[in-house]
């Protein structure tokens, strides 16, 4: 039993030099076999393991991580959490997750600093405003919060936005989801890891999967840098590298990997209250608890696994942000990072069985994976436990591309680079 986290326990630590804390997770040797192996110790993989143990009572589970847990996209995003999608399959899925987010710190006994400070999409013309109303109406009809804001209401929340009529892209209004916000990304991985570990899940770091063990058309385990490990069911959960890992099993996916860049400025006193995004422009900004303005834009829209973006892509997103919020001009970009994103061919994820028995897929998160972490873990755990998709991830099957039932929020079609 681990020492629970609490203010009291911290104060106790103030007297003993914080000597009473145990490691947040063990460092076990891999066993010869598990009921379920999850490839990938990112947010989704760790969440899946946690819900497998907690909801389904399946505790003989290993999470195999090539490097260190949380080192993939859960550790390199812009920490946004929201469910304000237009299409019902997406907003219902993400809303299920948003509800989990709201109780996540307590559930994990790890403060993931989920901060429901509101996320707004700005509209810059009548067309935008109608699209935003349509999105908000679709959400509201499905019981999800969404509110249209006038420029005056926006000014109260974000007074530093350029709300003048002469702005290059004047702000006509916004759609805000108040229950949306940000969370401390690393804490999500660590919180799930600690909670899953406490339920008996083996988190095995520095364990790279190099191949699959097959029995006929059935995957019965994996070859790793630490030897062969057998499994009843194996789940791939390595967004960014899904193409590569699925390729080890001989699968070709509707996915191309792209680099998505983000950056943070030096810290300043509070200047951005909510999360600001735009319907017509491609930037998003929020302010971290340390005071840095965190922002991102479009991905580098050609394939790459490099975690190394191109400067002009960032500069374009910054130009858009500074145009909308001129007060950002004299801040300084402090740190940049990139993630490798699984760009699926309709912009929506793939969660469900694969064409190979015993092998399951959780992939294609594009640039929206972080916010999905709890819902993805929950539904993937259900799928791995029962062999069948949960109602929420049933639409996100791999077959949909061949049948035509694609879920195309941005409606750009099959090429992620056209998005």
């Amino acid at each position: 039993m681990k020492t629970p986290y609490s203010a009291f326990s911290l104060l106790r630590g103030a007297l003993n030099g914080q000597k009473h804390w145990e490691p947040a997770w063990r460092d076990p040797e891999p066993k010869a076999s598990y009921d379920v192996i999850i490839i990938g110790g990112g947010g989704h993989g760790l969440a899946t393991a946690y819900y497998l143990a907690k909801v389904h009572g399946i505790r003989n589970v290993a999470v195999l991580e090539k490097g260190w847990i949380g080192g993939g996209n859960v550790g390199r995003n812009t920490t946004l959490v929201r469910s304000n999608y237009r299409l019902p399959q997406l907003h219902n899925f993400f809303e299920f997750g948003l509800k989990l987010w709201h109780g996540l710190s307590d559930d994990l006994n790890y403060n993931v600093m989920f901060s429901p400070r509101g996320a707004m999409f700005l509209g810059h013309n009548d067309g935008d405003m109608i699209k935003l109303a349509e999105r908000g109406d679709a959400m509201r009809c499905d019981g999800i919060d969404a509110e249209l804001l006038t420029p005056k209401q926006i000014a109260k929340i974000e007074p530093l936005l350029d709300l003048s009529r002469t702005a290059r892209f004047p702000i006509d209004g916004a759609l805000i989801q108040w229950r949306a916000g940000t969370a401390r990304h690393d804490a999500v991985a660590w919180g799930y890891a600690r909670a899953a570990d406490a339920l008996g899940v083996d988190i095995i770091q520095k364990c790279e999967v190099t191949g699959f063990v097959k029995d006929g058309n059935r995957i019965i385990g994996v070859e790793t840098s630490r030897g062969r490990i057998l499994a009843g069911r194996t789940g791939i959960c390595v967004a960014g590298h899904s193409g590569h890992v699925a390729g080890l099993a001989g699968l070709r996916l509707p996915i191309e990997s792209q680099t998505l860049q983000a950056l943070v400025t030096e810290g300043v006193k509070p200047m951005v209250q909510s999360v600001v995004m735009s319907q017509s422009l491609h930037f998003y900004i929020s302010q971290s608890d340390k005071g840095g303005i965190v922002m991102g834009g479009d991905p580098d829209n050609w394939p790459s696994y490099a975690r190394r973006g191109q400067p002009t892509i960032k500069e374009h997103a910054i130009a858009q942000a500074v145009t909308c919020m001129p007060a950002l001009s004299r801040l300084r970009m402090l740190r940049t990072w990139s993630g490798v994103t699984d760009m699926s061919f309709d912009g929506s994820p793939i969660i469900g069985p694969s064409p190979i028995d015993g092998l399951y897929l959780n992939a294609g998160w594009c640039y929206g994976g972080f916010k999905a972490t709890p819902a993805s873990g929950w539904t993937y755990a259900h799928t791995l436990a029962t062999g069948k998709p949960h109602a929420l991830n049933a639409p996100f099957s791999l077959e949909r591309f061949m049948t035509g039932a694609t879920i195309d929020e941005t409606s750009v079609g099959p090429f992620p680079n056209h998005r």
Partner: protein
Amino acid sequence: MSGPTRVPSGEETIEFTFDGTSYHARQGDTLAAALLANGIGLVGRSFKYHRPRGIMTAGIEEPNALVTVGTGGRAEPNTRATDVFVYPGMVAKSQNRWPSLSFDVASIFGLAAPALGAGFYYKTFFGPAKHWLRYEGFIRRAAGLGNAPTEPDPDNFSQSAGFCDVLVVGAGPAGLKAALDAAEAGKRVWLVEQDAVPGGSLLRDPDPAIDPGAMVERIEALGGKVFLRTTASGYWDHNFLTLSQRLVEPGAVPPHGFAQRLWHVRAGRVVLATGLIERPVPFANNDHPGVMLSQAVRSYVRRWGVVPGKRVVIATNNDDAYLTATALVEAGAEVVALLDARASGPAAPAGVTVYHDARPASVSGRKHALRKVTAVIGGSEQSFDADLIAVSGGFVPVSHLHMQAGGKLEWNVEAQAFIPGSNPQVCETVGSALAPPPAPAVAPAGKAKKSFVDFQNDVSLADIDLAWQEGYRSVEHLKRYTTLGMATDQGKTSNMVALSRLAEKQGVTVPEAGLTTFRPPFTPVTMGLLAGAGARNAGAHVRRIPLHALHEAHDPIWQPLGYWFRPRAYPVNGETLQQAALREARTVRTAAGLSDVSTLGKFEVSGPDAAKLLELVCATTVGKLAVGRGRYTFMCREDGFVNDDGTVWRLAENRYLLTSSTGGADRMAHFMSYVRNSLRPELKCSVVNVQEYYGGIALAGPKARGILAALTGAEPPRHMGYAPGMLAGVPVHVLAASYSGERAFEIHVEASHAAAVWQAIEAATRAEGGAPYGLEAMELLRIEKGHVVVGGEVDGRSTPQDLGLGGMLNKAGGFIGAAGLTRPALSDPNRNNLVGLVSLDGPIPEGGMLIQRAGQSPQGHVTAAARRIIEGGAIALALLQGGHHRHGEELIVTSPTRGEKARVRVTSPHFYDPAGERYRD
């Protein structure tokens, strides 16, 4: 004030203010030098515990001395006092303190420090997310550093391309030599230096044999370029670098309007002569004002004539700090002790007592300086009365750019440092970064709790130990758990100290413990600079239609459409948008109207295989068109969904004109090029994008034909016919196409002649009781007619069948998208189909959801709403599940976000003249 003094040479002629008080500085002073010269040791407060902090370094690695420089929209928060040169009238302010720097209420956080170790926030503040939001408010206000400006930035920022054979980074002795050698070899050379003067380490340790100024002159005389105050901040793929150049100091008014310049440089070869950064030494209270790096002390003494202390202790593990002792003695300061952690060292200057096997354990002092230094010497403690301690824990090669370029590092045991190794790009490192002085590992002597590693973020040795204890053992976990290296100095002074501690904990060597990646930027870069000219227009120049000025004279309401601006309505007599649009639409229905359609996508396709190409691109038949005829057409994506629509016209035997939507024009141009040049290069045809060549004017209404006949002196073509003609003395294409549902024409004319044609048509139209109409009236007209629009009903998720266009598909197939259309989900009877809606009560909210009863998940949505132009009454177009078979059904349109609702009946989308009788003469 005790402590710093100034060598009496040079004049303090530049006046500046710090926290409202005026001071004087010498030409060439950094703010840090000037503050020290004025006896100011306390400059800022730390991030977490608000501990008092002074000036620790003399360069860009400074973690502590952060100030806001400048005022209004030019104020630059978090400026390192060591990296800004004083100019007349400069206004500097301390940050992160309230009410004042010397009395900061938030320093109370320091008292709670025992409970606030690494990652404490992960362990508390539970409860609903709303509660965290409240705690977070306090944390956010206490965190942050300076304040962002609230006014717009008055200055511009430039971005320029640069090209050179050899780019040398760093104008120290090695960089100067590399640049001069390359220039003498006839190369196109760029030399960049972040300092305001060349010289690098020579500014601290002059060498009479090297004259940086003369070398710079020689490089320039050979055609090389030397950029001072310019930082190579990013090293990207294929030898591409970004350089940020300060044209004026932070906060200063630029004479030409540009504050900074960003260079996008492609270099044939890159030479990194980036030198070393000194390592601090961990001991208790090592963050106090009066603790400085040894080389920094030497810089202040030698370069700026500022002696930062009178009684100085030096603590070192290497020979370099002995030079600092010499400099201090020469400047008249007293070196009360030289603590050398090693068993032996070089000779010290006369009068300096050297203690071997000696390490600092703690210091204490007042706000601006130290009082006491306590050391462990050979196992026993000894205290010294001192106002300054100069420390050197060894040196860290500046390998940031080398690593950004993908370079490898090699571990040098003697120096306890990573040294640049091989590099996959055309890049080499030269100079001192390759040869840091030997400096053995030394175990810290002070209490871990107060021994700071990351000064700005208040990370101590104890925090690193705690992270380790809790299992955050990978270097990335350590960094993220403790926030080590994530402050504005990016760990330049802290990374190696922390890594040594981690290695010690793990019982491995430093390289085995790992290393975090270096990513751009090397030092923080101003956002306005990264935005460049795009800070004013989001990187999106306005696109102007050819008749912009002519419309402007009518004072229309403009409608942004992508990058374009088009007239939305031409109100008269104080009309609202809706009133004007309705009047304009009525005019079209009853007389005639003219409208600007110049932004339509337009392609001329010529050649013997033109029709073959068009039959690939268009999902309808094209080949059977007779010369002089046109037809409505649409294009599918390869997945079968409708991509765009327009009209196609056969202008001559082997020449066609294809029009497409405004919003999709660029996408269509790319697609046309792909199909013609990549997919079907063997076709004998030419595709030319003539979108901007033609200005387009739509003339619509029952009187349109008569007006046009009079203007051209010829019978206009019948509906969907084409004829060339002359109008206002200018050749025009007349296309008898209708979007409004009336007998109508598009007149396309070379853009430079469009004004004359518009004026002629406008005069004739007005004479017939007509008027110009804008986009809003066009919407009313097309909705009533049931014409789809790209971006509305054509939403990228609709099939031709969904939109009621299935009957027009080319039965022979072979068009792009035919394969995608065979997928079963694309003919699912429950797909969203285009329908019309007629309101049974009030207006229909555009974008609203279609439901059968309250509480139900939507079955469709309204794509466009309008009112009947003549008859009145609200109508709309909508996409409805299975809609083709639901005509007559009653539904509710609901818009919860706007609190609007309407009862509607589902109908055919063709409200107006479904038989097309208005097209006939």
